[in-house]
């Protein structure tokens, strides 16, 4: 249609070129009609479209025919719909259909298989649990023994400590032997002083001379005084 109109339009154009007139006839007709999104043309703005009247006989007949047609179409659609549903329900093309006995048998087989699996797993579990029980038992036993030994050692140490303390307690200064102890201490003064020479020899005693000889008497006297002080 579009091409035909272009041809129609171009033909007078050619003749127009031949006759040397303007090329208005080469105007491109791109659309057969105004695009829908353009507003009403100015020339059509006030045009009132005519409403055609149907005659009564036409109206009645068309109504009747339409009613019949629509009822028929609805009926066909209903038939096809029902047919599809029926086919989906009865056909076995896309799935396997079992009889109730087969279904029951399949279910029983599934049950048996499941039971067998359960039994295997149960046996494995038994063994594992037994092993675990024994391991636990051994561990507990070991820990108990270790605890016993530890306890005994502790008691031994405590006893040892008590014995040592008792041993020591004999030499404690009590109210009874206090005087004796004082006497003894006075009688045996302890001299912690010492001197040391270049050779690293230690000379115990405040007045001890190098070589180990006793200090002179005065020195000893002085030493005694210092000690008593």
């Amino acid at each position: 249609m579009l091409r035909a109109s272009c041809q129609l339009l171009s033909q007078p154009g050619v003749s127009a070129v031949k006759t040397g007139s303007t090329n208005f006839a080469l105007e491109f007709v791109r659309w057969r009609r105004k695009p829908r999104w353009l507003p009403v043309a100015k020339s059509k703005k006030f045009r009132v479209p005519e409403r055609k009247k149907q005659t009564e006989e036409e109206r009645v007949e068309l109504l009747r025919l339409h009613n019949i047609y629509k009822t028929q179409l609805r009926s066909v659609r209903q038939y096809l719909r029902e047919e599809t549903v029926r086919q989906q329900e009865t056909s076995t093309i896309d799935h396997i259909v079992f009889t109730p006995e087969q279904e029951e048998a399949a279910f029983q087989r599934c049950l048996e298989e499941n039971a067998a699996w359960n039994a295997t797993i149960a046996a494995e579990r038994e063994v594992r649990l037994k092993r675990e029980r024994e391991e636990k038992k051994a561990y507990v036993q070991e820990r108990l023994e270790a605890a016993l030994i530890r306890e005994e050692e502790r008691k031994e140490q405590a006893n040892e400590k008590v014995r040592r303390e008792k041993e020591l307690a004999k030499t404690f200064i009590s109210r009874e032997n206090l005087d004796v102890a004082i006497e003894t201490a006075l009688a045996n003064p302890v001299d912690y002083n010492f001197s040391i020479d270049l050779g690293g020899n230690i000379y115990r005693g405040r007045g001890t001379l190098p070589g180990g000889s006793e200090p002179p008497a005065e020195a000893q006297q002085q030493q005694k005084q210092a000690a008593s002080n």
Partner: protein
Amino acid sequence: MSQKVIQYIGRTTDFRGNTLWELVANLPNWGVGRMLIRNMFQRYPEPCFMRILKVQAVDEKPGEERKVRVTVEKTWRGVTQPKPVEIYSTSYKADYELVPVEEEQKFLKNTKKVGEVILPNKIEFPPLLREYIREETGESNPLMNVHFKKTYNKQARIAAEGEQPTVQLGMSLSKPPEVSAKLYEGLL
């Protein structure tokens, strides 16, 4: 001074009357209990009218005819519908008219009824489908059920067992009514 003549310009319409809001807005108690008609439906000889039961105003929308939500008791072609009907989406149509109280009797006394329309229970298939079904099932004359959904607006019904239908729905061009017989002159 000559009489004023109103000349209408532009497209013509089949509607005659006012929008529903224009009617109810001016009435005391929103016109509850008054009788309404749609002028479009006055083409039927049977009485078509509505009685207002309840009115709910709806906000005005700019650039549109104002709508209103009205619940009516509808009598359609001589049959009063059992449930009240709500008019909302069609309330903008300038086709409603209020019936004056003294003229209501005209509608109430009109006892015309629609003639009985009985549809056949089963009809034949369209030709091509019929051929397919014949091939598949081997049935010489397969028939399909007629689809018909009964609503309160529809007054036809499907024929019961052994009843004679009043409408022929066959695939062939059945006999045209008296009025339109002229269209088929020399053809049938």
